[in-house]
């Protein structure tokens, strides 16, 4: 049964938006291995699950929105790899903190955050991506790794990443 023109227009709009949500969910699939690594290594299931759900939601929303936001989210997933991988690798390698205050893991989160922020600053203008979306996604992805360093690790990750990404963030505002 053929549809009236207005009904067809409305259904086409719905089909388009649904397709974009599906594309967003497809992009967010990469969060699953990140969350699995964090789950296994950090042994903080509740925090990992909450972080992963938040990250997947932000990625899906950005890709659904499209344009610079979508490109920013995809870039953020790459930029989030250093702060995700560095602390997890160190823990897997068997590093154990002996002192009452251990600066090793927060230090790795800082280095990972700075590397991630530098990637955002370098790549966001080249790919016409939103640095804000990229930084937000990178922070959330990095948080999954920096859970090993607790709140201190996450705070220094956020600080390092924003500091290193600030040239791109400032340029976006200007």
């Amino acid at each position: 049964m053929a549809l009236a023109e207005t009904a067809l227009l409305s259904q086409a709009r719905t089909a388009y938006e649904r397709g974009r949500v599906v594309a967003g969910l497809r992009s967010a699939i990469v969060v699953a291995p990140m969350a699995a690594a964090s789950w296994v290594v950090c042994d903080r299931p509740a925090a990992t699950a909450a972080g992963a759900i938040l990250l997947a939601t932000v990625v899906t929303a950005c890709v659904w929105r499209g344009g610079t936001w979508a490109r920013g989210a995809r870039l953020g997933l790459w930029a989030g790899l250093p702060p995700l991988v560095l602390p997890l690798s160190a823990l897997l390698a068997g590093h154990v903190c002996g002192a009452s205050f251990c600066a090793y893991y927060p230090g790795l989160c800082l280095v990972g955050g700075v590397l991630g922020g530098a990637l955002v600053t370098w790549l966001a203008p080249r790919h016409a991506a939103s640095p804000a979306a990229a930084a937000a996604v990178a922070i959330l992805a990095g948080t999954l790794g920096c859970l090993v360093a607790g709140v201190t690790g996450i705070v220094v990750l956020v600080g390092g990443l924003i500091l290193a990404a600030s040239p791109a963030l400032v340029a976006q505002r200007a």
Partner: protein
Amino acid sequence: MDQAERQRLNQDLARLADGDREAFHPVFVRLRPLLARFAARHLPADAAEDVAQEALLRVFSRLSEFDPARDALSWAFGIAAWEIRSARQRERRRREEPATALADRPADGPGPEQSAISSDLAAAMDAALAELEPGVADTLWHYAIGTRPSGVAPAAFRKRVERGLARLREAWRGKHGAR
């Protein structure tokens, strides 16, 4: 459709694929009549409008997958060709004889065993075709009915058919071995 119009469609589709909602209406207005005419060329009038609408909805639902390096019109027609093929399959299945009619089959016609084999082969071929990309299946479909898509040179069409048949053979071997 002239070259400038086609170029505009390419640009609008690329913008919409990137998430620019302002390109939605121009794409809808341009694609709607094109898909309707395309379906009308390949299907009876009563089915063409429904299939054109289904194809249009399918195009919009898959727009996020559109690669701006490709030609927008060919991409949309590839999806429409797939819908047309599905509609024909549905129609063919609807018209298939019911099992009770086997008893009335004339003695010189194909026997029940031969009919079952033919039906199995047709189903297997449909399954193999369904694994191909819409563009490849469309080329083979044109080849099967002895036509050539407009705007495709004979030599290019021949090459596409060769590639398509090779892909179909691969899909067939993947499912049924080297038989």
